[in-house]
């Protein structure tokens, strides 16, 4: 994979890091838009949810009161785009009283140390 780096048809490891709450700022929504468009490029993609970004995956989001679109169902569609590596940082999740059962998609829970090691392997990291 990475021996082709930089050439035509190269496959790079792209990691999208989601650190912010789903509403309040537009970062989470526009991050998801990058992921969906980026999926067409057939790269090696992973997503990390950490800090308040963990809330992006929380089940039962009701945005009626703030007149914003609830885009959380879109995370369930990622599998159809071959975006299957979803990591949640353990410390962030636990600090917010959440468990994998509270999330809209199956995820791999990783410690901050493990996330750090994964970051080391990446070619491109986009942080939102």
């Amino acid at each position: 994979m990475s021996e082709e780096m930089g050439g035509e048809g190269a496959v790079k490891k792209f990691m999208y890091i989601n650190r912010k709450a789903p509403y309040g700022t537009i970062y989470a929504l526009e991050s998801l838009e990058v992921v969906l468009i980026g999926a067409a490029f057939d790269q090696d993609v992973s997503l990390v949810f950490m800090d308040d970004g963990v809330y992006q995956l929380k089940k039962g989001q009701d945005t009626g009161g703030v007149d914003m679109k609830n885009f959380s169902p879109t995370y369930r569609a990622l599998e159809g785009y071959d975006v299957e590596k979803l990591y949640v940082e353990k410390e962030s999740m636990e600090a917010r009283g959440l468990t994998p059962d509270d999330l809209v998609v199956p995820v791999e829970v990783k410690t901050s140390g493990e996330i750090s090691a994964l970051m080391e392997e990446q070619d491109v990291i986009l942080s939102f």
Partner: protein
Amino acid sequence: MKFGIMVNEGPYTHQAADTAYHFVKAALDKGHEIYRVFFYHDGVNNGTRLTTPPQDDRNIVERWSKLAEEHGLDLVVCVAAAQRRGIVDPDEAKRHGKDADNIAPGFRISGLGQLIEAGIQSDRLVVFGD
């Protein structure tokens, strides 16, 4: 080295817009290549020519336009982010029935694929933002 640059914050509000410019300028001065500068989120506001800062302040938009002219930089404003925030080129103005455009010289509007491509083609993609 070949750099891709992503600018995620608006001018004057956030220093990221300044830092990105200074990074690009320094990289060019050192002989590096800038593959593309991609403006996303409120970063698209770096691309409106209607910006009119006080005369004793830096003109962030003109600064980008000038650097683009001098070095042939590819300054790309994300179309989806631009549409939300009212950054419009003549084509977009026509397509959406707007009465004006405001894209600054040296900037062009295109899709998010341009960002992914910059990530693929560059040795490093450097992100400026929060």
